[in-house]
């Protein structure tokens, strides 16, 4: 330890900093970067998990571009994103905005809204799957038919299946978004509102001119967070459609389910890796956009 004693305080700090940093650096290198790099290499190869890997060049990517299922899945993934993110943000903001004003049983109500977020996605998906069943077992259709209304084909329709799968996913994420929105609302200084009240400004203007602009960091965070969540949607779809994964007729299949299917049913690891690289690129672009929007001005 002689060399250590000779170091200046500044240098000692550097040594300590790096020895603490070594653990996350090692973790990220071994657990994140190495497999990511491996997946990118694998996307240029053919491999069935058992035999040797063979080089395929751009074959997997060419196949991807020519695969109609991929484009269907690609558009599904963005439908999940474009429906899910705005709907969940608007609902959670409205709830948070009003919940913020409630004093009666505030903590209890907040806990109840947070409960779905803590529930296992798998258990929830199976429960909703049962809700959606046709008569005689489905909850919703039993209610409809007891009212004399004809059954609704929730999961059994190429048009309605995707919104039906999305609904519980949105619902499950609400609790988290409400908590974050409420934290954002609480962090807005009361003095702004008092000043606005003294000036006699209406509630609508307060919302538009004070609350929403000051919530911008919160909104950007939630947009990115929920976008990544919807782009990676899997649990809900997989568990609600196990009889026909991603069906009917691929109408609910997101990119992650296609990757899973290609890797662990077709055992086409190279092709699955190519799909993963595409997903990775999309997520990377979304994250970079976040950094761009949130940058200090």
């Amino acid at each position: 330890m002689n060399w250590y004693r000779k170091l200046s305080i500044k240098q000692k700090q550097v040594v300590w900093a790096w020895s603490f940093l070594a653990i996350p650096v090692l973790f990220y290198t071994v657990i994140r970067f190495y497999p990511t790099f491996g997946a990118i290499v694998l996307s240029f190869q053919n491999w069935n998990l058992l035999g040797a890997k063979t080089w395929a060049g751009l074959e997997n990517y060419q196949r991807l571009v020519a695969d109609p299922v991929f484009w269907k899945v690609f558009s599904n993934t963005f439908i999940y994103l474009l429906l899910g993110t705005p709907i969940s943000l608007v609902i959670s903001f409205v709830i948070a905005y009003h919940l913020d004003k409630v004093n009666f049983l505030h903590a209890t109500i907040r806990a109840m809204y947070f409960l779905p977020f803590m529930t296992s996605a798998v258990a929830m998906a199976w429960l909703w799957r049962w809700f959606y069943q046709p008569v005689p077992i489905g909850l919703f259709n039993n209610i409809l038919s007891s009212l004399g209304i004809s059954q609704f084909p929730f999961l059994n329709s190429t048009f309605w299946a995707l919104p039906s799968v999305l609904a519980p996913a949105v619902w499950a994420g609400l609790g988290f978004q409400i908590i974050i929105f409420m934290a954002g609302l609480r962090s807005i200084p009361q003095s702004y509102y008092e000043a606005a009240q003294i000036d006699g400004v209406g509630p609508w203007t307060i919302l538009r001119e004070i609350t929403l602009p000051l919530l911008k960091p919160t909104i950007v965070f939630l947009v990115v967070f929920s976008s990544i969540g919807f782009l990676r949607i899997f649990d809900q779809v997989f568990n609600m459609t196990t009889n026909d994964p991603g069906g009917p007729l691929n109408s609910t299949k997101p990119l992650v389910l296609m990757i899973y299917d290609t890797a662990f049913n077709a055992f086409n690891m190279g092709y699955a890796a190519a799909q993963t690289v595409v997903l990775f690129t999309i997520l990377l672009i979304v994250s970079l956009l976040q950094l761009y929007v949130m940058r200090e001005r």
Partner: protein
Amino acid sequence: MKSWKNTLMGITAGATIALSAGASQAVEIEYWQYFFEARVNAIDTLIEKFEAENPDITVNQTTFPYADYRTKVAAAIPAGEGPDVVQLFYGWLNDYVEAELISPLPVDAFPPEQIRAEFFPMVQAMEKDGQYMALPTAVRSLALFYNTRLFEEAGIDGPPKTLDELIETAAALTKTDAAGNITQVGITTGMNAQDHHWVREVLIRQFGGDPYTGDYQTVTYNDDAGAAALQWYSDLQNKHGVTQAGFMDEPQAAFKAGRAGMHIDGSFRIGALNKTRGLKWGVAELPAGPDGTQSNYSSYWVNAVTTKAEGEKEAAALKFLAFITSDEAMQIWLDTVGELPAKPSAGLTDANRADPVFGPFISGLAYAKTTIFANESGQRQVLMDAMQRILLEGETPENAIGIAAAEEQAILDGYYK
């Protein structure tokens, strides 16, 4: 305090010596299969018997949930971390043989002529270059399960023997509520369960077609027979209204709940149905086609020795494999799991044939076909999509079967190229 530590050290040292002494004589081998309670119990029974006969060999059974099993095995065996004897689905074996992860069974202990003569003919798919790669304990086939209580209630004497009778029987068993919603189906349908096998290997053949060429690398059902088979199958719902795809989520669930008159399923379902309280059911052979053609689909799991097992472990593994594919083991497997013996000598006994439950399955084995899948779930998906096109998009069976044939051929071409 000191004496307590000494005692502990003494015990530890003694145990270490005892264990290492034991290890030098005994061979320990690892057996893997997926988790299905009856199968695990059957192997436990077999291991007990085997270890009693071979005191120097210990067999450890490891199981995984079915959903992970294929991936776990495929990841573990190439890494050399896996089992010495492994249970694989017959359709997966080819990939393992090509990757040289399976040791062929030695000719002297497992003579090919003898296996060819003793096992059911479909097991011959396991022979490669004059050696067998793996052997099954049991095979499975399909049959028609029927709810005897609902049959009595509807005044039907017995299960249908032909496809026409099946429609009549199903119609008598179907119940609807005031709004016309089906509350009890005459027969369950769902390509996700066993129906894709029924359509592929049974209905298409019964309507005069051949689903594939002999090597199962070319789809040949894109013809009138294929369209007629799909037409008949979709008419059950669209024309006769005796079924509803997705009724009660899963066909077997509807049958278990007593909400389905008839249900086509494999012999592996027997165990689960036996445990369902209050359900009275019978089994019949699959109904014959318009010209009397009978067909069935058979599949099986095989036991193979991996290349990880070497030297005395390999010898022990082979001994265990021979034991679990013996007539005795097959009868235990039949009694515990309800899967049919892979040898006619064990399966086609008078007692088994006359058995009201196993009998129809065993008779079905005589004319069963085994599809050689490249990607079973992918090929199942193709037929599932064909049905969805008919049911949800109003596609004609002719077009639906054409699309299915093209899609399935693409899967086969991708695999065999």
